[in-house]
């Protein structure tokens, strides 16, 4: 991990560091050489760390007032909203925080897709990231159940019933998950327990994610291997810290807008009706961040295959480093991949929209085409593209990509000359 020796300047620091090298770790983190061309798409790692900590802190405080019981959960959430000091603020931060967390993670994932950050030697970072993403979905789903509203109840019913698609043991698994013959109090209490646990698992995986990142170092927009430290790098502190900090402030403005001006816009009105096992709401929709996968589930007319397709859509990401056969990382030098990348982005957005619409008629047809394309992208286009695509020559260093030998050369020169005119 550390390729430089570090000795604390103070005697006490040295004494401590010889026994527990925390200061060496701190020094590694501040001096950590970072590519100097990282753009703002690289600031979402820091933003995600902020989101996780926000969820843990607000979650802990909410748990001091929430009661995990089918008869009292709904009321206790209203109690938090009306009676608890700043309870409304803490709950709105927590509820919208989940959406912000997913917004950031999707940008983070699509950043990796564009710049090929999942490729060798960063496969383990990527896979840990996918596991974190899966845990995030589990945590978000179980958290949504806790207020025990209509969407909570029926969302829980639909999602747990996905397991009933497994042949032979499916029904048994569902009964086991429920602790009864339907979603009820035992389900609520165990979901609360797991919802409390998962963020700490994520925290542990984030440490591994960053640890694995610090072995090869960051990828960068040019996507080439660079010497570290060199003229192509800057120390993490203060350069990246300040840049991440600025991006975080911008992100917090968006976050605060939702919390203070439209705290319920990302939720469903049905969840302000207490859970009723006798009535299913007219239109069950998951939270926005799960919609693309929900659309895939519904676009397959068979129950088991629908569940298989939905899970594959997520798990296929884990093997992405081996599906993408191209040696070139960054889409900047892959003219064809760049186009397919944007088609994929559009495809996922279309799937998300279809997931929110009723599964019938034209919506269903479009969802089916989009589902087919999603798998086509990963299973056919990416593997073939690596062999067929004529890529643009990559620069030898980040500095060269700015000063010469790059397709952006003209632009860079123009900028320079316009600066000279000032």
């Amino acid at each position, binding site marked *: 991990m550390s390729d430089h020796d570090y000795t604390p300047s103070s005697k006490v620091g040295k004494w401590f560091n010889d026994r527990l090298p925390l200061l060496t770790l701190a020094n590694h983190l501040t001096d950590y050489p970072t590519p100097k061309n990282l753009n703002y798409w690289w600031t979402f790692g820091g933003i995600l760390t902020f989101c996780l900590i926000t969820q843990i802190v607000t979650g802990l405080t909410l748990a001091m007032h929430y009661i995990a019981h089918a008869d009292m959960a709904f009321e206790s959430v209203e109690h938090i909203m009306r009676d608890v000091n700043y309870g409304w603020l803490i709950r709105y931060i927590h509820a919208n925080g989940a959406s912000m967390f997913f917004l950031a993670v999707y940008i983070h994932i699509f950043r990796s897709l564009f710049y090929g950050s999942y490729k060798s030697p960063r496969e383990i970072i990527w896979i840990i990231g996918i596991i974190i993403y899966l845990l995030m979905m589990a945590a978000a789903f179980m958290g949504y159940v806790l207020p025990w509203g209509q969407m909570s109840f*029926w969302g829980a019913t*639909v999602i747990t019933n996905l397991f009933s698609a497994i042949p032979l043991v499916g029904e048994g698994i569902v009964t086991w998950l429920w*602790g*009864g013959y*339907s979603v009820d109090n*035992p389900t609520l209490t165990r979901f609360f327990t797991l919802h409390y646990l998962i963020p700490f698992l994520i925290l542990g995986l984030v440490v591994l994610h960053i640890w694995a990142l610090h072995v090869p170092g960051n990828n960068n927009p040019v996507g080439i291997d660079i010497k570290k430290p060199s003229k192509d790098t800057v120390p993490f502190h203060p350069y990246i810290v300040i840049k991440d900090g600025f991006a975080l402030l911008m992100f917090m403005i968006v976050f605060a807008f939702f919390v203070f001006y439209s705290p319920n816009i990302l939720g469903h009105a049905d969840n302000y009706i207490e859970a009723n*096992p006798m009535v299913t709401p*007219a239109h069950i929709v998951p939270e926005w961040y799960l919609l693309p996968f929900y659309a895939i589930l519904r676009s397959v007319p068979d*129950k088991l295959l629908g569940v298989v397709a939905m899970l594959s859509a997520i798990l296929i990401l884990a093997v992405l480093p081996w599906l993408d056969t191209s040696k070139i990382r960054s889409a900047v030098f892959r003219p064809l991949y760049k186009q397919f990348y944007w088609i994929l982005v559009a495809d996922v957005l279309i799937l998300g929209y279809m997931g929110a619409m009723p599964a019938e008629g034209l919506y269903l047809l479009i969802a089916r085409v989009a589902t087919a394309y999603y798998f086509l992208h990963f299973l056919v286009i990416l593997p073939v593209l690596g062999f067929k695509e004529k890529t643009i020559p990559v620069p030898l260093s980040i500095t060269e990509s700015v000063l010469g030998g790059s397709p952006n050369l003209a632009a860079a020169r123009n900028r320079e000359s316009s600066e000279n005119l000032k």
Partner: protein
Amino acid sequence: MSDKKPERRDFLFTASYAVGAVGAAAVVWPLIDQMNPDASVKALASTEVDVSSVKRGNTITVLWRGKPVFIRRRTEEEITEARSVKMEDLIHPEKDEDRAKNPEWLVMLGVCTHLGCVPLNDKGDYDGWFCPCHGSHYDTSGRIRKGPAPLNMEVPKYEFVNANTIKIG
């Protein structure tokens, strides 16, 4: 693999691992099984319903084991419609005669076999039920006719205790 003959120590290793695995499984099982339905949940296994007030063509919904149960008193047309369907037209072939022993009364779990939503009464393309979640259509016998659900709505164990009372479970 080496050609070395197994010795005393190899036997000890294998035996220790085996005992350890059995011990670990024995400890893990209670931790898993505690999540299964407990004694108090199982105790609520049956429920009795008075159906004397249900008119023909109406459905009442009662809660049994936390799940809705539809009790429909069918009209003659509905019975005829349910009984005239050809078996080849069914996704999950079941005779209406087997689902409703007393043709006037259809008793079944009001739970869509797709993902567990409660279907809506008197809706859908087959004059029976329609699930709003993912668009499954059921006929007047509660059999799946169209949509993603794989099975007919389940008929629970029930009996007429007397002319006006149904015991479910």
